[in-house]
């Protein structure tokens, strides 16, 4: 067709779209005009009036059919037919609003959960990191093995990083990052503790990121002798400095040291998954030079970019070679790594989220499948009820395709409406998720975009096709005559249809069982996690972090006297029962650090072997505050002062492991910071993290000082609500030094909650999904059995009339209803055997084939199924035979 053809016909087609009713009227007038003219003409030729009319109509043909044929030639008539179907389906749906609402709600829940999970998985796991060519970035690890402690993916030490950087041949560039907390203060404003990152000057160019204001660090900024510089985060710049562009080249006080602001990072800057980082300083300027040279202080993250053509395996081999050489040269340092490891950078940041997120995605997939099966089931039930209508339509010449199309249209309408509701549901679910799960890396980047919208559309189409297709299976081979005959006689008809519904139900029950088993395992695992005994009191204990800036608190004596006078003041606050100090972490919060030691009274260990234990620094009040019992010996004596550090307290498992059968009290140990200290006491074990096994622990006197314990956690216990003491303590601290601020004020319960948040989140969510599925399955069972009973009313009536007892009828019907539930249960248990593998890594203290969980799930399911079937079965057994036979 040529252009001028289009130019001419497009307005014509549009007008035939928008002036439908006028066109209709004109067509009617045109046809009538023709007939009238012909009649007049016939009369003029001498026919009688009625004869003229008859002759005209005979010659003209059926006006109704002709009008339809003419309308068919208009454009858009196909669409009009479709709209008709939509209108008809909508009207049919609205006639049974309960059905429509239930179906839409079910689909909305299924679609909503899936869309939300999809958006999360995409943003967190799948999207590439916001760095240039991020596929070639790797996180490099040290493989450490010492005294039975294995860390194949251990953090990097500054000294090893330097060796790697100098001698590797497979990496285009390497950078190192660490973290620090600073007391940020400026004139006239309250000091605050800010989380900060440190990185080597080449980090930003390695990642391919630029500051949005000012410049990044240069090699000259990143030396111990450089003037201190700082890069601000977008959030801190806006919040604390009002987004003032003149901030560049001004100085701010970090730990009372002036730092020159050289730039502001963009709001979108993603710092290797660390959350809440407010500013960055160059690592070699900020960290002690000695620390950056150490081979056995593993506190940094090394990032590398693969050389073109190099593989990760080559990098690992390359770095392992270097590491092995260093290891051999430093056998006196047991914490030196013996090999290297690597992971893609993305994996290193979000890898731990993979199992839980994919497990949840699988669960939502099950929910959606159940929702579809449920809607299909409802549709089958409807088409059964409308069999007579359909048969009549078929008999009157309604084409099979048209009937099928209308059937699919209903499914499509339900799914589209459900999808729309589900989409908005997903949006609010995502908002909630981002608020609740700040611990998930990249949670901030979760967004609903075009891809998510397209995913929703695809899902809706799939659901509609699935539900429609399954339910139209029941329309197959319907013989109009038979349908009419069956529906007019009350026979036990529709066996095939009932079978289809039973199969659907079995599948539904099976999926429900899979979800229930998963939820049960996670729930039990969470309960185990929460009930693990930390070895200390958790009620009414508050932890408050404080950190002394090394610039003004350089001397151990100064730190020690500050801590002890601070503790003295805290203990005078009325209401505070006990107070103590601990470094680096309270039980259940963090693993902290490990160190090797030598027991002087024991024979020397073979070369290359060492004893390793967790280390903690605390004061005499710590054990009483947390209720950690003394099993043997005594507390630190009050003479443990800087320069005079001679005592060590060990934990129960320490005593068991290193003094089996012997008495540790009075023995002497040498560690890296104390030589020949005496073991004076044994205390009960505490757990470093809720899900971790107990490890041997040694306590050093914090008031004896150490050149790196400049921060600590104050723990206080009270009989009353302990959180009310946070403000008084903060005031006490500010009263001693107005540049100091407290941070991370948390009760022990909050710490536990934070560290078991993920387990509780996964378990709760899966439980909700499983509960939902159970409800859907129960509704399905109830519906199908009610239908069967309604179908068999006559038969049951006859049975009763012939003398069947109610109990027999009850049993007969119950078995009918419970059969699909039983099949489903078996199916689900078999499927669970495979699916539990998916969540195996998420379990704590629970075996994947936990017999209790499997038993409880089976019992719950059968119980609910029994309840769902009981009512229809009971009704069947109470049928009045006369009534039943009369209903025909």
């Amino acid at each position: 067709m040529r252009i001028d053809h289009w130019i001419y016909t497009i307005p014509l087609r549009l007008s035939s779209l928008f002036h439908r009713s006028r066109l209709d009227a004109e067509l009617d007038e045109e046809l009538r005009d023709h007939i009238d003219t012909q009649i007049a003409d016939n009369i003029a030729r001498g026919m009688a009036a009625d004869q003229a009319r008859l002759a005209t109509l005979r010659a003209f043909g059926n006006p109704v059919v002709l009008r339809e044929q003419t309308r068919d030639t208009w454009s858009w008539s196909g669409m009009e037919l479709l709209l008709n179907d939509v209108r008809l389906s909508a009207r049919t749906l609205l006639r049974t609003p309960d059905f429509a609402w239930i179906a839409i709600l079910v689909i909305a829940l299924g679609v909503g959960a899936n869309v939300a999970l999809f958006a999360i998985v995409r943003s967190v796991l799948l999207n590439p990191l916001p760095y240039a060519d991020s596929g070639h970035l790797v996180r490099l690890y040290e493989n450490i093995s010492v005294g039975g402690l294995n860390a194949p993916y251990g953090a990097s030490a500054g000294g090893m990083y330097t060796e790697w950087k100098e001698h590797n041949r497979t990496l285009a560039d390497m950078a190192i990052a660490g973290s620090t907390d600073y007391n940020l203060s400026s004139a006239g404003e309250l000091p605050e503790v800010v989380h900060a990152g440190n990185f080597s000057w080449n980090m930003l160019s390695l990642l391919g990121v630029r500051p949005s204001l000012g410049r990044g660090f240069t090699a000259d900024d990143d030396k111990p002798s450089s003037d201190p510089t700082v890069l601000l985060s977008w959030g801190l710049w806006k919040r604390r400095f009002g987004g003032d562009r003149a901030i560049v080249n001004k100085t701010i006080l970090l730990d009372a040291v002036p730092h020159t602001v050289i730039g502001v990072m963009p709001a979108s800057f993603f710092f290797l998954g660390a959350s809440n980082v407010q500013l960055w300083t160059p690592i070699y300027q900020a960290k002690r030079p000695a620390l950056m040279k150490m081979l056995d202080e593993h506190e940094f993250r090394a990032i590398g970019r693969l050389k073109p053509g190099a593989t990760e395996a080559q990098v690992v081999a390359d770095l392992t070679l270097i590491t092995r050489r260093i290891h051999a040269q430093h056998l006196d340092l047991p914490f030196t790594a013996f090999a290297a490891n690597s992971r893609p950078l993305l994996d290193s940041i979000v890898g731990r989220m993979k199992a839980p997120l994919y497990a949840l995605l699988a669960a939502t997939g099950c929910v959606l499948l159940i929702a579809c099966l449920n809607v299909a089931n409802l549709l089958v039930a409807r088409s059964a009820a409308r069999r007579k209508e359909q048969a009549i339509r078929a008999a009157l010449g309604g084409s099979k395709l048209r009937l099928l199309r209308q059937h699919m249209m209903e499914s499509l309408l339900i799914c589209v409406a459900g999808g729309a509701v589900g989409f908005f549901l997903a949006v609010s679910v995502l908002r909630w998720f981002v608020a609740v799960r700040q611990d998930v890396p990249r949670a901030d980047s979760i967004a609903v975009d075009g891809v998510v919208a397209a995913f929703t559309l695809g899902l809706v189409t799939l659901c509609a096709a699935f539900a429609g297709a399954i339910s139209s299976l029941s329309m197959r081979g319907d013989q109009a005559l038979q349908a009419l005959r069956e529906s007019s006689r009350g026979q036990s008809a529709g066996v095939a249809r009932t079978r289809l519904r039973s199969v659907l139900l079995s599948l539904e029950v099976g999926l429900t069982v899979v979800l229930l088993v998963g939820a049960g395992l996670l729930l039990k695992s969470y309960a185990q996690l929460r009930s693990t005994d930390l070895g200390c009191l958790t009620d009414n204990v508050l932890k408050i972090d404080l950190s002394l800036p090394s610039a003004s608190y350089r001397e151990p004596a100064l730190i020690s006297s500050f801590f002890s006078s601070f503790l003295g003041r805290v203990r005078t606050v009325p209401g505070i029962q006990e107070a103590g100090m601990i470094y680096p972490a309270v039980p259940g919060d963090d693993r902290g650090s490990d160190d090797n030691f030598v027991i002087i009274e024991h024979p020397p260990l073979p070369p290359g072997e060492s004893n390793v234990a967790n280390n903690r620094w605390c004061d005499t009040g710590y054990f009483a505050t947390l209720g950690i019992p003394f099993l043997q010996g005594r507390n630190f004596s009050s003479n443990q002062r800087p320069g005079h550090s001679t005592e060590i307290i060990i934990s129960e498992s320490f005593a068991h492991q290193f003094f089996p059968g012997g008495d540790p009290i009075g023995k002497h140990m040498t560690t890296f910071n104390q030589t020949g200290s005496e073991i004076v006491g044994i205390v009960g074990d505490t757990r470093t993290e809720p899900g971790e096994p107990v490890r041997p622990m040694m306590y050093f006197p914090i008031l004896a000082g150490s050149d790196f314990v400049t921060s600590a956690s104050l723990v206080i216990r009270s009989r009353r609500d302990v959180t009310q003491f946070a403000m008084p303590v903060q005031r006490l601290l500010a009263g001693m030094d107005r540049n100091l601020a407290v941070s991370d004020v948390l009760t022990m319960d909050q710490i536990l909650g934070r560290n078991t948040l993920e387990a509780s989140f996964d378990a709760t969510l899966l439980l909700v999904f499983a509960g939902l599925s159970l409800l859907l399955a129960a509704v399905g069972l109830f519906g199908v059995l009610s239908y069967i009973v309604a179908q068999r009313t006559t038969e049951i009536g006859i049975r009763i009339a012939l003398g069947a007892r109610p109990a027999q009828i009850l049993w007969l019907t119950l078995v009918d209803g419970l059969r699909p539930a039983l099949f489903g249960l078996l199916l689900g248990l078999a499927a669970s055997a495979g699916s539990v593998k998916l969540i195996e890594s998420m379990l704590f203290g629970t075996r994947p084939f936990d017999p209790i969980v499997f038993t409880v799930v089976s019992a719950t399911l059968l119980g609910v199924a029994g309840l769902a079937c009981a009512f229809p079965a009971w009704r069947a057994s109470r049928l009045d035979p006369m009534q039943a036979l009369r209903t025909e």
Partner: protein
Amino acid sequence: MSKPSDLVQGTLDLLVLKILALEPLHGWALSQRLKQISGEVLQVSDGSLYPALHKLEQQGWIQAEWKLTENNRRAKFYSLTRLGRRQLEREAANWERVSAAISGVMRLTEV
């Protein structure tokens, strides 16, 4: 049913275009003219003219206009458009070719 077969339908289109090329007509007048010209050969009902007319209109080959007839009735008059004229030429040429070919074949078989 009164729906003409495909062959006749195609021919009907051509005839309608040809007749309208001579002068604009309304539906009834067109049907009268059709009968006059083709006699009883075209076995189509009067009404089947209308689907054909509307199809041609949708194609843009003819256009309709409401006007008064000679005896003062309002009627829809159809006339050929520029596109329709071109189409008629094409169809007519086509027809010539096909009918020539067919009659050629017919003569062959008669011998």
